[in-house]
């Protein structure tokens, strides 16, 4: 990883902040939505969403956040409303963009504190386009493809023009060469056209060589367009700003039990074994496994070398969208030591651990890892597992006319069926957990649009806030508990 120089606020020196925290929290829609929620619970009675609370009146839940590129801004809107309604989090988990918000929620301040304003502050200081830190030409192409819907046809037109000019020059060369025998005055024009053809071929050749060199770079970088270094440095800076310098620091902070935690009377369970932690999901390609960091970190490093890798790397691994970002590697795994071998065997039944691991976005295996919160030993739930779903399904994508799909459409369906079914299967079998999931509808946003305008960011934040309010109004904790209890009894 190469270090990007960032100032104390984790911004690139000289970069301007175009948004302020109040540009999000002060939005009329957001304020109205909070006022509406308060009014709702004033009429309906106090909001009860968990059996675990503290002496400040905060209620605690587990929270899983779905991955979805830049749509992650909406996650912040959602958690902002939850926090404003005095909801705090014990177990946190996320994939990709969800892992980013999860990481910030885990490291900023303490569990019982509101963190949304600090997270919004971090986002305000982040120019999303900086995350696209690949070759300038690749950055330009990505920008054009995403922001100009007709860019593909523009490229086609330019290519046709290039071929057309070449054909014209060739025809002109041959024609003038033949004519000059009978019309000597054409000699000068023929020479000029010959030179022009040569220069044109040179330019086309240079362009092709450049494209070839870009493709070679892509191959050399392990088929990733953007190194992701800026993101790593930014998150590392955010973590260090909050005194998280090592994996130990992260674990210490993530596992810290809030003071004055209590269990609501009537709940037969106890608080003794209540887990508090943080999890980032990533996909490891060498052994083809889903990795949960920091829990599974012991697969890659011995306890003595534990702090060799910064915890920002866990999130960097989780958000490595294949091809868009370079894969994240962990090198020099002491795969010959008995301890590492035992860990791999215990976790995955793997007898021959790799010396190098390669990670890509956790979303290709589990984009919504709510299953990690399922505790089969608990009869009666103490806290609900909340989930935030990012739904960017567009109408044309839900087209059910299977025979009308183009090849990319077909390939996309194939890939999505495989990658989503792992999570979907769990949700189908544990429908009760679906009751804790709120969905943010974002059909008009492109999850790879790193060139979001100020208004688009605000709009996403509003959508997140409104989705959270809608969810809270309809969430019935008593019904959730009962259904969860019945489900456990049925399994037993």
């Amino acid at each position, binding site marked *: 990883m*190469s270090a990007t120089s960032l100032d104390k606020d984790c911004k690139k020196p000289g970069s301007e902040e175009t948004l302020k925290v109040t540009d999000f929290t002060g939005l009329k829609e957001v304020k109205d939505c909070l006022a509406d929620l308060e009014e709702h619970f004033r009429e309906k009675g106090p909001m009860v969403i968990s059996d675990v609370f503290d002496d400040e009146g905060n209620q605690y839940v587990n929270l899983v956040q779905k991955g979805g590129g830049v749509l992650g801004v909406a996650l912040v809107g959602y958690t902002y409303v939850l926090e404003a309604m005095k909801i705090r989090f014990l177990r946190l988990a996320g994939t990709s963009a969800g892992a980013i918000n999860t990481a910030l929620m885990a490291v900023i301040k303490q569990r019982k504190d509101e963190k949304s304003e600090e997270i919004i502050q971090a986002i305000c200081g982040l120019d999303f386009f900086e995350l696209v830190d*690949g*070759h*300038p030409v690749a950055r330009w192409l990505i920008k054009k493809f995403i922001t100009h819907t007709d860019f593909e046809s523009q490229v086609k037109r330019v290519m046709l023009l290039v071929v057309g000019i070449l054909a014209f020059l060739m025809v002109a060369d041959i024609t003038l*060469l033949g004519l*000059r025998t009978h019309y000597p005055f054409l000699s*000068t024009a*023929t*020479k*000029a056209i*010959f*030179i022009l*053809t*040569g*220069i044109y*071929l*040179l330019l086309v050749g*240079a362009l092709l060589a450049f494209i070839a*060199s870009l493709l070679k770079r892509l191959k*050399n970088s*392990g088929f990733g367009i953007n190194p992701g270094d800026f993101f790593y440095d930014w998150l590392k800076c955010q973590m260090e700003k909050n005194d998280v310098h090592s994996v130990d620091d992260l674990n210490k902070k993530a596992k810290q039990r809030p003071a004055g935690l209590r269990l609501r009377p009537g709940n037969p369970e106890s608080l003794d074994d209540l887990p508090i932690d943080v999890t980032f999901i990533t996909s490891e390609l060498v052994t083809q496994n889903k990795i949960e960091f920091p829990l599974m970190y012991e697969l890659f490093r011995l306890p003595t070398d534990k702090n060799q890798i910064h915890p920002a790397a866990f999130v960097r691994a989780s958000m490595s969208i294949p091809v868009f970002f370079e894969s994240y*590697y962990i*090198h020099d795994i002491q795969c010959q030591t008995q301890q590492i071998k035992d860990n791999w065997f215990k976790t995955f039944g793997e007898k021959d651990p790799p010396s190098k691991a390669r990670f890509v976005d956790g979303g290709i295996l589990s984009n919504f890892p709510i299953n990690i919160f399922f505790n089969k030993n608990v009869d009666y739930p103490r806290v609900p597992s909340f989930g935030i779903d990012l739904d960017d399904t567009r109408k044309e994508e839900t087209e059910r006319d299977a025979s009308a799909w183009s090849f990319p459409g077909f390939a996309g369906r194939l890939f999505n069926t495989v990658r989503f079914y792992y999570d979907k299967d769990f949700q189908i079998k544990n429908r009760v957990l679906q009751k804790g999931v709120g969905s943010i509808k974002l059909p008009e946003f492109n999850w790879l649009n790193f060139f979001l305008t100020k208004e688009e960011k605000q709009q996403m934040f509003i959508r997140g806030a409104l989705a959270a309010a809608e969810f809270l109004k309809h969430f019935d904790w008593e019904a959730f508990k009962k259904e969860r209890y019945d489900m456990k009894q049925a399994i037993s």
Partner: protein
Amino acid sequence: MVIDIWSWFCLTFGLMLVTTLIMTEQGKRFRTNDGTIRKFSILDLEFAANGKEIVNLIKGIYKLSKIDAKRVLSALKGQLLVDFLFMPAVYGSIFLLCRVTSAKLVSHPGKEAFYWLAWAQGISWVCDAGENIYLLTKIKPEPVLPSRTGFTIYTVNEWVKWGIACLGAIGSLSCILYFWLTGEFSAHSLSYAAILTGELIFFFLAGKVLAKLNKPSIL
């Protein structure tokens, strides 16, 4: 006059091929470690996307095993030094091609253009030498990250070097092709064409033999 130029051209062209052979062999040893060990070429340094890329690439060499790093560094420095021999050969060749073209052109603007293009090869030579000196100073375990302005100057230097050289080479070759197709060439110059073809065949065969003999042991 033209025949004299061609004999000089055979010489510079031959020297260019010999130095190319040496530099190609040196280039086969270029490796860097940016997480994974990978090959690179001098063009990756010349056309880096930003200053950080140059620094990372050089730092990566020092991250190789000691023995491999030593081999790569010696090959890289060696190539930059041999390049000083390559420069008079390549820019000299283009200079001569432009002079031939200028001499054969009757129309005044073309004649003038190629005359100046010939002398402009000196600019390319200076740019190339400057670039090599710059890179030689950068080769150390902790190279200094070039400033934005410094990197812009470096990039402009590259484009000027390649632009003038390619314009001279392609422009004059296009004209020479024209003279060839229209039969406007001296029969004496055919012997030089034979020499140049011989040089190219020798270069091709020598390249094959060297490739077989010198399989780089580096991973």
